[in-house]
């Protein structure tokens, strides 16, 4: 469960990224958050992973108040939310296997468990033959699949995907969305931030539209309306 109660984020008096946003996302939902560039979508993601702090209001995941999370607890929070970025954010000097394993290593998981889990998630995204490759040796779609594998490795209940298909062609976009849909089918909550009209319309899931830092529509089975 994710809830935002009257959340605002202001960088200064003139720059307001989010204003009085309230929303509630049930466990297992797949929600698309759409909006134009600068509408506040990415700020919302940053608030959820504690990269930014809300200026006012409350952000809760489960019964954990993210607005009050201590700096020391931020790594714990991030290990429990899978995050997918448009620019992949893979470690360039690590192989596919090492990138995925790193997410477990930071959490102090045992080498035995890492050897067991990492190949499993890499297989889920179909990269079992490319485990020893470095990110620059992969296509954009493959890199994004590595990111999905990394986000899955903790078996999180929530995955936040910020423009995951922004740098991909139509075929790779469809593949990534299919993978995310399958993950959602297994009960993981997916928060998909996108401005890709086709993706949103194809999913036929809940769509929240943000404009000027405010929620302007929230449809249970919506379409891209901007």
């Amino acid at each position, binding site marked *: 469960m994710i809830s935002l109660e009257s959340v605002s984020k202001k960088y200064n008096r003139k720059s307001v990224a989010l204003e009085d946003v309230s929303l509630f996302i049930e466990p297992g939902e797949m929600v698309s958050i759409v909006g134009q560039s600068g509408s506040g979508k990415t700020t919302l993601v940053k608030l959820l992973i504690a*990269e930014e702090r809300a200026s006012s209001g409350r952000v809760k995941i*489960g019964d954990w108040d993210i607005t009050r999370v201590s700096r020391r607890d931020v790594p*714990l*929070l991030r290990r*429990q*939310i899978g995050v997918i970025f448009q620019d992949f954010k893979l*470690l360039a000097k690590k192989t596919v296997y090492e990138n995925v394993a790193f997410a477990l290593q*930071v959490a*102090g998981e045992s080498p035995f468990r890492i050897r067991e889990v990492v190949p499993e998630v890499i297989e889920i995204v179909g990269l079992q033959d490319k485990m020893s490759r470095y990110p620059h040796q992969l296509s954009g779609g493959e890199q994004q699949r590595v990111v999905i594998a990394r986000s899955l490795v903790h078996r999180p*209940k929530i995955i936040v995907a910020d423009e995951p298909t922004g740098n991909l062609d139509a075929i790779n976009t469809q593949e990534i969305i299919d993978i995310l849909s399958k993950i959602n089918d297994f009960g993981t909550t997916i928060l998909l931030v996108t401005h890709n009209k086709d993706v949103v319309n194809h999913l036929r899931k809940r769509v929240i539209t943000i404009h000027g830092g405010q929620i302007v529509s929230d449809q249970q089975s919506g379409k891209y309306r901007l």
Partner: protein
Amino acid sequence: MVVRLFLISSQENIDFSMLSFFRVIKFAIQDFFRNFSLSFMTILTLVLMLLSVNALIAFRVVGQHAIEMVEDQINISIYFSHTASDEHISEIVGFVQSFPEVEQTTFKTPDQVLEEFRTQHAANHEILASLDELGENPLGATLIVKTNNPEDYENIITAIDIPEYQDIIDAQTFGDTQAAIENIRNITERVERVSLSLAIMFGLIAFIIIFNTIRVAIYTQREEISIKKLVGATDWFVKGPYIVQSIFFTVISIAVTSYLVMFIWSRFDPYWGLIWHQADFLTNYYNSNILFLLSSQTAAVLVLTIFSATLAMRRYLRT
């Protein structure tokens, strides 16, 4: 610390455990070799800076030794009147020896002084003939005094320059050597001042260059740092490999510098040997001070690299 684990119930452990410690070392080794060109350039910069510092040390050691050698050759001679009684001479010798500044005294009897005079002027028959003409030894005893520092000579001369001793002491050579001592003192002070200024300047340059080298190295990896933070790494887990790499950089640069310094100094030693008739001057200095030189340089570079890495990373760890 109570953390509500709402998503997964695995054994979360935020502590810097032994397993994490070994992983940090593993990542440090991996990063060191995978960013080899960066590691190489960092070590090269450290080696060049350390070589400059060691060149300065060599300059100081050679300069100080040169001054010591010149100082060592300076003394004052007190010439007693040939009519002075043994009792009076003994009193003055005892008085001079009682000064704590006096390092060494050499007393020469009138016969020894005459013998030396004859030897020195063996080629001058006129002087020798004049001496023979006199029929007796016209020279008195001599006391050669050496003090710990050139500045102390003035105290000794002032102390014996009293009316009671005027008939006993014929002359002293201090007047002749005073100018030389003054010069030596001036040179010593200038060399010290130049050495200190150079040390401060080199130290500052070394600090700025090493600090910036580490900063640039961290800057090139700022993206990696933020990614590690985003996937849930603690500050220590991110910082650790860089700190360990700083230790690698320090140890390797100190080892390479030590080897090069020994090699270069051993090449210079034959030249110093010709001047000072002292074999392996710089090598011996290095060997006898190796513990101090290595430990002080290691500590300085280690503190500097770790401090620079920590400071440079601080802004990227905020994400």
